[in-house]
């Protein structure tokens, strides 16, 4: 087992967007029946065959670190959360498609995770202003996931999709939109993510 390499991925987003459900779905291939608030950090693991079927096939453990809380949390909570942001290989940003604020807060979430070297009070040098330059040079791959797509009325769906397309462009990230109450067993395909 020691030969399997370690991949740490953070799952960030506001309270109630569906991070815990998502992580459970990815790792257990099952619907999470009883979601409750995540205190601190909850980790789950998925065994993934990278480049399955090719001669370069390699098996990885993907650790999904689901961090609870909100961007507006007290600075003591932010300082404590910062210990989880070390040596991260990828970040999954989750937002609720029915709640615009959760999408806007993703900027602050990503700043918090990427600027983990800032001072303990969580004051970010750039004053929390979003700086696109930082994301272009960013070595950590980002994946943007929107949840609760089916709760949006039919006529507003294209508007929402346009908005999220802009968002993922800003982050230079890949994008996936999901339904609530996944009743089918879905097998997730992470072939679109390339880990070095």
């Amino acid at each position, binding site marked *: *087992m020691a030969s*399997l390499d370690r991949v740490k991925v953070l799952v960030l987003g*506001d*309270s*109630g967007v569906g991070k815990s459900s998502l992580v459970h779905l990815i*790792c257990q291939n099952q619907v999470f029946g009883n979601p409750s608030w995540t*205190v*601190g*950090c*909850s*980790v*789950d*693991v*998925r*065994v993934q065959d990278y480049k399955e079927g090719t001669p370069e096939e390699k098996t990885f*453990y993907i*650790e999904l670190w689901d961090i609870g809380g*909100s*961007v*507006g949390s*007290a*600075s*003591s*909570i932010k*300082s*404590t959360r910062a*210990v*989880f942001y070390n040596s991260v290989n990828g970040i999954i940003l989750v937002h*609720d498609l*029915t*709640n*615009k*604020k959760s999408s806007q*807060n993703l900027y602050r979430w990503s700043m918090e995770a990427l600027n983990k070297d800032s001072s*303990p*009070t969580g004051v970010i040098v750039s004053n929390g202003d979003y700086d696109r330059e930082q994301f272009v040079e960013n070595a950590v791959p980002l994946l943007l996931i929107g949840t609760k797509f089916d709760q949006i009325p039919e006529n507003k769906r294209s508007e929402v999709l346009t908005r999220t397309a802009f968002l993922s462009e800003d982050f230079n990230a890949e994008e996936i939109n999901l339904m609530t109450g996944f009743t089918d067993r879905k097998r997730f395909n992470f072939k679109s993510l390339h880990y070095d």
Partner: protein
Amino acid sequence: MKLLSVFVLTINFFFFFFAYFVQVLFFGFGWLFFMRQLFKDYEVRQYVVQVVFSVTFAFSCTMFELIIFEILGALSSTSRYFHWKLNLYVILLVLIFVVPFYIGYFVVSNIRLLQRQKLLFACMVWFTFMYFFWKLGDPFPILSPKHGILSIEQLISRVGVIGVTLMALLSGFGAVNCPYTYMSYFLRNVTDSDILALERRLLQTMDMIVSKKKRIAMTRRQMYQRGEDQNKQTGFWGMIKSVTSTQTGSENLSLIQQEVDALEELSRQLFLETVDLQATKERIEYSKTFQGKYFNFLGYFFSIYCVWKIFMVKFWSQHISFILVGIIIVTSIRGLLITLTKFFYAISSSKSSNVIVLVLAQIMGMYFVSSVLLMRMSMPLEYRSIVTEVLGELQFNFYHRWFDVIFLVSALSSILFLYLAHKQAPEKHMAI
């Protein structure tokens, strides 16, 4: 003579405009507070909630404004009386009809079963509320018998009881908690190395959880693969082999799973402890700044004041207490808003945010109305008459006694609660 009357008229005109302008300002402040503070992480989908909150806030603050006008002697006494009555009617309308109805409406909206007949169920909820609201008057001696059923005194008295209870609970807790939070005497000594040690433990626990979950995932995967191979195995022995190996596999799994559950619980506790230490460290740093020292001094001052208040409530000097009225108004509004905000963050989610804001608006309105009731005692004698006139002949003494009782109970329980919490905390760190 004519010039003087013209002058007086202008001054009154000025105050008139000022009053309405300030009311609009209050509304604007309530609106901004709602948007920037309470709802800063949520999307406002129902603007009626924001409007109701701002209106409640505006009319509540206007009552305080009218008290100040009363004391300053601004406007004529008839127009003051008129404004008082108007304001009171609006506030009662909002607190007894509008807000409870909307609370019922939004609660019903969240429940899927009742979606069809939202309005009907909302009305039912409101009638239930009115029933209990009316029943509230029975155990309390708040009215003299000469009042009719539908008089305004009936409504005010009940709103007063609820509001006074809330005020007393909050004041009692605040009187104890405020010195405790700010006085450096109570701050436990936290060093950076304490925090680092806890963080290290937290990360170690997370690593243990990760390695155990990896084992589970790998074992499951092997079982699954083996299961596929074994499904191809036929014959009697093949079946026996497959059953026994999967059994030991799943026994192992459930054992590891139990260990994981225990470790996850531990990680949560460690996280919370670390947050607690960080918060204490920040408070210590804050206490070394000028602001911190100022609040520390205030903490000592207020603790003496609160002890005095707990034990010597009767000894109010009329005119000193009037100055305190001003301070109490400002600090209690500010304190209430801060407390409401914290409470809101702690318990709201995107579904329940509307309901919670409306409940907060209700509490705020009742709190302000009963502040006026209680403030009557602190006001110099000559200004009490307007309050008595407007609010009708309620048994004011009852409210004061009730406030004192609840305040005492709340303060003593808070002391007990904080003492227990404080005692427990150092022992937890000794165990590291």
